[in-house]
């Protein structure tokens, strides 16, 4: 039986924003043909968005903390460093899995894939096309093929003449990128040399791939191009519209370079499409996008991996082939889904230990997915690393130099660098990326442990300190967060505005919204145009139920960035809290229109529809959330409630199972404004033999350590008293039976006055307003939850 082939083309940093414009103008017909005859979607990246980590996640289906490739360089075990290599990868890649199953692969240029592996097929590494030795470019006649860059050796003979050296690139070839190149002195203007180098690299990779496709038997070919990313880092600042600070002369000269790079990649893709038959599935992917519009940063931070600030969070995916839908879009894809999807194309089992999922929405007909516990349990050899006979120092220096040129790592030969410090710095840097990888996967405890280990107060790194504070807040270690905030503030490691933003998060976690608000206001006074701070402010105002002020804050963002989906979502939330669900729906739809892969916006849209008793669209919204993330258990509760209303027994059974799966049981909560009535209610319960926790001597003497993570789950009492203003911190894992004791603000004020020995008849208008607001917030929140049984007493 004929086996279907798969051609996978990787374009580092390709972004739909540019591709869509070029397709509309007829300049990228090859990718357009895939989009029209297949499916397209955004491919969510993972943090940190650094290419070797991302492309390894794509090739393995697991996150960096599982695959082991961390950053751009790694210790070489001899006291030095080398470019990140195949040695670092701890798990099988797709080409190993296919080899085990008897499929033949051609792998060209994958980052990192040096040294090559003895797979069933051919492998040409990402160092095959490097022409530098250290800082120097070697002459064409002296350009050797590096040991460890080609497998099997027999193919060297047929691909060695396909390498293109940057010195061979002529004016004819540069002109499409820089029409006025003739007027420039190539020796003086290094930017033309950059174009020559990137063009040579891309051409070598492509020529090698076409040679292997046409002369070797294969079932899977993967071709990876890094040139699009490097073109973008070097020339996106000249891309239209003209950025502030870019001279007219430079803009006129280089404004077409990025477009040229995209068009050239499409021309290469066109050739590949002509070399494969209709039974071949073709997939084009990128690991992240690249800001090409008003979101382009005005400067790149001078820290390792600083250029990654230019990366956008969504790459591309386009697939066509037999059994693949035509002309449709897919949603909710992540770079982690590539290997599971490739396995499904070959009807091979997906590892249950993979972080990604097969993209079943690409298939015309329902696809049965097979699973195994782990590909790591398969003991057959899927290819071993071909260890070079001699340590090739030149090759390592070459690749390291390329990373220095790109600004991703510091120069080892810089005068202030000692080798030992440099190595330590590299290890710390990789540990930082490991921690980021953990925190991205919501494994904040693991991240914090690493961060605290690498943090060095004698040599503070603001990125590590920020991450420590963020992870401390996430794990509710507010004292730790405050300790680091004090250190940062005392040593003036960041500007006050940013410190205020961080501190506001801590204060919010400590349930001090007014202090958080003041801090954010201070930050905004210093940075009135900072969109991130305005977003934080809008969200905080929403949390404080100050919907009108919140709307104003989000509107300021929309004035500056009309495409900002989070601002529309924020306004939607403000109207949602006001109970104006039709307005809320309109804004949630605006948010989704700008960013479809936005689970929270779909979720709130579903809630708004449900509260308006529009059950069908509510179900549709929640089911979209379900395809995007499995981490919002409340979605299942809503779907269960809605299907119960619609009496769909099959769905009720399905969602009942899911709710039970996620459920951590029911908690009984007593709440209400603190009054003597509440104290008496608790006293009666205790006298009847029930245990009640939450306070000691009086209702404001809390016995719960709210700074402890998952504090609610640690309580094993029959009831727990939770003050009204803490109610919103409950989550969707539990269901709640809430005994809401009805009291007036006046009674609550009387209780507080009694505790503080203030005369009974004293009236505090501010306090009354505050208590009234607490009631309003709590009642509004309770009315919007699917997992609460409310008993008013």
């Amino acid at each position: 039986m004929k086996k279907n082939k798969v051609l996978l083309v990787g374009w580092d940093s390709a972004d739909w924003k540019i591709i869509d414009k070029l397709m509309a103008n007829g300049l990228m017909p090859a990718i357009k043909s895939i989009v029209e005859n297949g499916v397209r979607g955004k491919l969510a990246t993972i943090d940190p968005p650094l290419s070797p980590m991302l492309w390894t996640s794509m090739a393995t289906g697991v996150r960096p903390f599982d695959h082991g490739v961390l950053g751009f360089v790694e210790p070489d075990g001899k006291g030095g460093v080398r470019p990140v290599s195949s040695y670092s990868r701890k798990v099988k890649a797709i080409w190993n899995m296919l080899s085990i199953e008897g499929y033949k692969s051609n792998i060209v240029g994958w980052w990192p894939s040096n040294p090559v592996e003895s797979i069933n097929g051919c492998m040409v590494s990402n160092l095959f096309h490097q022409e530098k030795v250290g800082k120097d470019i070697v002459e064409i006649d002296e350009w050797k093929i590096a040991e460890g860059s080609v497998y099997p050796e027999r193919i060297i003979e047929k691909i060695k003449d396909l390498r293109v050296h940057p010195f061979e690139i002529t004016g004819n070839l540069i002109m499409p990128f820089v029409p006025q190149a003739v007027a420039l002195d190539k020796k003086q203007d290094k930017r033309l040399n950059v174009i020559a180098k990137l063009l040579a690299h891309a051409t070598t990779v492509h020529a090698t791939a076409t040679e292997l496709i046409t002369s070797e038997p294969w079932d899977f070919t993967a071709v990876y191009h890094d040139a699009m990313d490097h073109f973008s880092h070097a020339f996106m600042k000249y891309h239209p519209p003209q950025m502030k600070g870019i001279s007219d002369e430079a803009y006129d000269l280089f404004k077409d370079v990025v477009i040229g790079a995209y068009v050239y990649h499409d021309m290469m893709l066109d050739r590949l499409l002509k070399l494969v038959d209709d039974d071949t599935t073709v997939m084009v992917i990128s690991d992240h996008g690249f800001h090409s519009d008003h979101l382009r940063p005005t400067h790149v931070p001078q820290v390792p991996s600083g250029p990654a600030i230019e990366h956008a969070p969504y790459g591309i995916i386009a697939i066509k082939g037999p059994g693949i839908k035509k002309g449709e879009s897919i949603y909710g894809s992540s770079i982690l889904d590539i290997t599971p999807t490739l396995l499904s194309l070959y009807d091979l089992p997906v590892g249950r230990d993979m972080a990604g999922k097969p993209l079943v929405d690409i298939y015309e007909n329902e696809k049965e997915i097979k699973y195994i516990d782990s590909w790591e349990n398969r003991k057959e050899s899927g290819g071993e690393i071909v260890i070079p006979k001699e340590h090739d120092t030149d090759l390592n220096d070459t690749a390291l130099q390329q990373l220095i040129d790109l600004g991703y790592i510091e120069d080892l030969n810089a005068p202030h660098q000692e080798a030992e410090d440099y190595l330590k710095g590299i290890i710390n840097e990789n540990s930082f990326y490991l921690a980021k990888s953990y925190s991205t996967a919501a494994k904040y405890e693991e991240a914090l442990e690493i961060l605290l280990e690498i943090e060095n107060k004698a040599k503070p790194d603001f990125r590590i300190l920020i991450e420590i504070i963020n992870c401390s807040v996430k794990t509710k270690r507010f004292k730790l967060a405050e300790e680091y905030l004090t250190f940062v503030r005392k040593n003036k490691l960041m500007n006050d505005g940013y410190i205020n933003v961080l501190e506001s998060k801590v204060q919010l976690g400590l349930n001090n919204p007014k202090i958080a608000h003041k801090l954010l206001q201070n930050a905004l006074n210093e940075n009135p145009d900072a969109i991130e701070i305005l977003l934080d402010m809008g969200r905080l105002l929403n949390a404080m139920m100050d919907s009108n002020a919140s709307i104003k804050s989000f509107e300021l963002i929309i004035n500056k960035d009309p495409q900002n989906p989070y601002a529309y979502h924020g306004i939607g939330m403000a109207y949602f809290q006001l109970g104006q669900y039709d307005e809320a729906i309109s804004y949630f739809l605006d948010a989704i229109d700008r960013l479809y892969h936005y689970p929270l916006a779909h979720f709130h849209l579903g809630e708004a529809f449900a509260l308006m008793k529009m059950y069908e669209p509510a179900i549709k919204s929640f089911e979209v959330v379900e395809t995007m993330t499995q981490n919002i258990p409340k979605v299942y509760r809503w779907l269960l409630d809605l299907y119960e209303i619609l009496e769909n027994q099959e769905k009720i059974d399905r969602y009942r199972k899911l709710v039970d799966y996620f459920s951590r049981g029911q908690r009984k909560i007593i709440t209400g404004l603190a009054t003597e009535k509440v104290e008496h209610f608790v006293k009666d319960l205790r006298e009847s033999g029930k245990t009640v926790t939450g306070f000691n001597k009086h209702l404001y003497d809390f016995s719960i350590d709210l700074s402890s993570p998952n504090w609610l789950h640690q309580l094993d009492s029959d009831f727990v008293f939770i003050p009204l203003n803490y109610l919103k911190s409950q989550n969707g894992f539990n269901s709640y039976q809430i005994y809401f004791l009805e009291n007036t603000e006046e009674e609550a004020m009387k209780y507080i006055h009694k505790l503080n020995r203030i005369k009974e008849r004293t009236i505090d208008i501010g306090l009354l307003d505050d208590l009234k607001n607490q009631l309003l917030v709590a009642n509004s929140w309770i009315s919007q939850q699917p997992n609460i049984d409310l008993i008013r007493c």
Partner: protein
Amino acid sequence: MSKKHVIKNQKGENYIVPPGGSLGLLALGNVGVRAWKKAKKEWEETQNPKLEKE
């Protein structure tokens, strides 16, 4: 004069390979790179025959 190198382009038409190359030629991959290198080499020999003999 060096002889003109001709290859088929992606539309199947005859295409004269310029010694300076073209993006269309490089985009053909292995076939294009080889044809270009050959044409370039012969052009360089024509331009500087003495150097080649030395």
